[in-house]
């Protein structure tokens, strides 16, 4: 039946009629401070420079709070505190006790889950549905998972001698602020290291709430230090001579700079960078579920996902049907107030990112691709983009090659399996891929031929603390999550 062409009929009416009333999550229980200081050596301290910067809500463009801007001297203070804590306290503590602290952090996060979710939504623009159902629970689960490994390291890597690295410097992005902090801090602590972490400048608030939670947990002073700031703060961490390992998640450009900076210093490095991941639909796929998977793959978190399924490949025999269904589905998405529980797509994280996305949409149009955007209305204030599709796209189109990091999907068609494997791998990136087919053997064939760190079959964007995550080529190296993510924070010897 999939071979039948669509007859042109009147479109389905998804506007008006019975509709949901606004259902905003209350913010009354959240008390943000006017100003957040640096968390160094178990204390909240003002930055040496006395400088602060503002963080805003991208959905309203209103200022939420002021945040300290750490400079080189603050970083030095934090690294010294982390070194002292490593030498004198953390490395002396029994592994079982270390684990207890990590469990305690996880439990405190769960207790404050609602507050964390609301603040994440306010600061990052992501929908409350996602921060409540994905970001915060997953962040807690990372702490729970790695807490369990803390006293079992020798069983994690049998017949090897494992030891902590020392002081780790961690720099995280703005797309999953709290979750990325959890990805970094939890395995580092479980492996016995101390931490200096810098959140992104547009989304520092949940990291500071996490600092408060860590403080409340009674974790020994200096084991975790959290410093807010801009790129210069990150550079100071990367270049500090007394750091043993750098873990970075962010753009490929910055990743390259970091790799150059640490070359020859003996610092261990893991990079989790950009992507332009392929989502591949075969003609025998369960089409309605595949369409859901495409929507989840690219519009999850407004497309601010390094592994977003931004390049869609559809087998030609079902291309018309898939594209038609995608368009229908786009018109049922709710775009707007991220705090509303019914919102599917929230605000773009920052003005700068909004401009990048608009630039790419213009490039797509200039390249002659056909554009389709959701018919939804956008709020007057705040940074929003309609979910957008481009068809008539070629491998040579820039919008199919470069990471847009927004709710923009490019659609290409293919005829044979060899062709799609070649096209999917024909990218400087290699972070993730999705395969949609009813045929099990084809899934296994594809997983061995696609050069991507994560391959999802008949689903997309599924994350779990037990599963390693990371990329090939310009998507970075090293793995986070699972045993592999634990190993990245350990010296493993025979």
């Amino acid at each position, binding site marked *: *039946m999939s071979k039948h062409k669509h007859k042109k*009929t009147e479109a*389905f009416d*998804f506007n008006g009629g019975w509709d949901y009333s606004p259902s905003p999550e209350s913010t009354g229980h959240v008390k943000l401070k006017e100003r957040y200081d640096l968390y160094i050596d178990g204390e909240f301290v003002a930055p040496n420079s006395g400088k602060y910067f503002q963080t805003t809500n991208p959905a309203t463009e209103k200022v939420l709070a002021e945040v300290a801007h750490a400079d080189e001297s603050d970083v030095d203070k934090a690294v010294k505190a982390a070194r002292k804590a490593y030498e004198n306290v953390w490395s002396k503590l029994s592994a079982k006790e270390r684990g207890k602290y990590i469990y305690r952090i996880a439990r405190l996060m769960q207790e404050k889950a609602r507050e964390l979710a609301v603040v994440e939504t306010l600061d990052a623009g992501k929908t409350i549905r996602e921060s409540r159902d994905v970001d915060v629970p997953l962040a807690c689960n990372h702490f729970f998972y790695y807490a369990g490994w803390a006293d079992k390291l020798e069983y994690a890597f049998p017949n090897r001698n494992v030891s902590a690295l020392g002081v780790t410097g961690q720099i995280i992005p703005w797309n999953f602020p709290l979750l990325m902090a959890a990805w970094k801090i939890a395995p580092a602590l479980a492996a016995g290291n101390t931490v200096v972490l810098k959140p992104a400048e547009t989304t520092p608030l949940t990291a500071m709430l996490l600092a408060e939670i860590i403080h409340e947990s009674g974790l020994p002073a200096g084991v975790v230090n959290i410093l807010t700031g801009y790129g210069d703060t990150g550079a100071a961490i990367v270049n500090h001579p007394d750091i043993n390992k750098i873990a970075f998640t962010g753009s490929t450009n910055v990743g390259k700079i970091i790799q150059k900076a640490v070359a020859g210093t003996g610092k261990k490095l893991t990079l989790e960078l950009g992507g332009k991941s392929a989502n591949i639909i075969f003609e025998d796929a*369960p089409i309605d579920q595949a369409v859901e*998977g495409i929507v989840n793959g690219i519009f999850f978190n407004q497309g601010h996902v390094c592994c977003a399924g931004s390049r869609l490949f559809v087998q030609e025999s079902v291309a018309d049907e898939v594209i038609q269904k995608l368009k229908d589905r786009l018109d049922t998405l709710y775009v707007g107030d991220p705090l509303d529980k019914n919102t599917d797509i929230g605000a773009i994280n920052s003005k700068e990112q909004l401009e990048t996305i608009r630039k790419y949409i213009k490039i797509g149009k200039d390249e002659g691709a056909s554009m389709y955007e959701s018919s939804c209305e956008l709020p007057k204030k705040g940074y929003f983009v309609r979910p957008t599709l481009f068809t008539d796209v070629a491998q040579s189109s820039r919008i199919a090659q470069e990471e847009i990091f927004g709710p923009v999907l490019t659609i290409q068609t293919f005829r044979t399996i060899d062709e799609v494997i070649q096209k999917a791998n024909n990218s400087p990136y290699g972070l993730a891929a999705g395969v949609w087919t009813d045929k099990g053997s084809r899934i296994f064939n594809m997983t061995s031929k696609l050069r991507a760190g994560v391959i999802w079959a008949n689903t997309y964007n599924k994350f779990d603390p037990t599963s390693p995550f990371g990329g090939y080529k310009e998507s970075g190296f090293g793995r986070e999550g699972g045993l592999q993510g634990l190993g990245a924070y350990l010296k493993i010897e025979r």
Partner: protein
Amino acid sequence: MNRNKTFKNIPDFKLSPTVDKVGVEERVARFQTRSIKNESKVQGLKLVLNMIDLTTLEGKDTPGKVRQLCYKAQHLHDLQEGLPTVAAICVYPTMVAEAKKALGNSGIKVASVSTAFPSGQSTMEIKLLDTKFAVDNGADEIDMVISRGKFLSGDYNFVFDEIAAIKEACGKARLKVIFETGELASLDQVRRASDIAMYAGADFIKTSTGKIQPAATMQVTYTMLCAIKDFYRKTGVKVGMKPAGGISSSKLALHNLVMVKETLGNEWLNNEWFRFGASSLANDVLMQLVKQETGHYQSADYFSID
């Protein structure tokens, strides 16, 4: 035009699209996280009431019982103003004449099950007579069951022809085709049954008889809504949907409306194209409506049982 027809040019039903259960469960979970409050809830609940096929299908049904049910259908809760009536009364063929008389010119339809409901284990001849009897007694709608045995043994032509024959016997009555999805076991089969029924002339497709569990799960209903959507795209003909059995709470009914709205759009959000087959749903909806107005839940004793 709210009538389907039997198609001459039909696809190979062995090639009906496949359905991924895990994906369907995920989509259904999303519908269930929609938050429906205040005015939206009141409107939705009234819509639900107006979509109910108030049902009694028991061996012990009598004209007296049917008369009471028909009164309830027209007077859901007289203390509450501005309530709609239900869409239809659903009874056995022998009760159709009584129901028709009791409902008079209220506008409420009489639906009759037929074709040796609920098992469908009878001859074609008897099934046709069963249907004609109901239609002759004034049934506005016929709820037939498919031959699940034939379907599961792969005799799709038999199932198609049977539906087409009953469709003819229905005359002006609208035909609802019941799959008894609890016996079909997989969503792939639900999808295939939907395709067969729609091409054979079903005006509505319906999940269950209410006699077998599981009945109208959201997963099954969603799979059927997707089939209706594809059929409409291909033929331009609208087909209605009736989940029946197991929907007894307002919350679940509202989630069903969300699912219809986001899958087929607003044109299906009325009782011409969407029905609930239910016996105990109405009182729960009434209780919720009163709560929305007064802020308090009343005990079940304040809502009549018929």
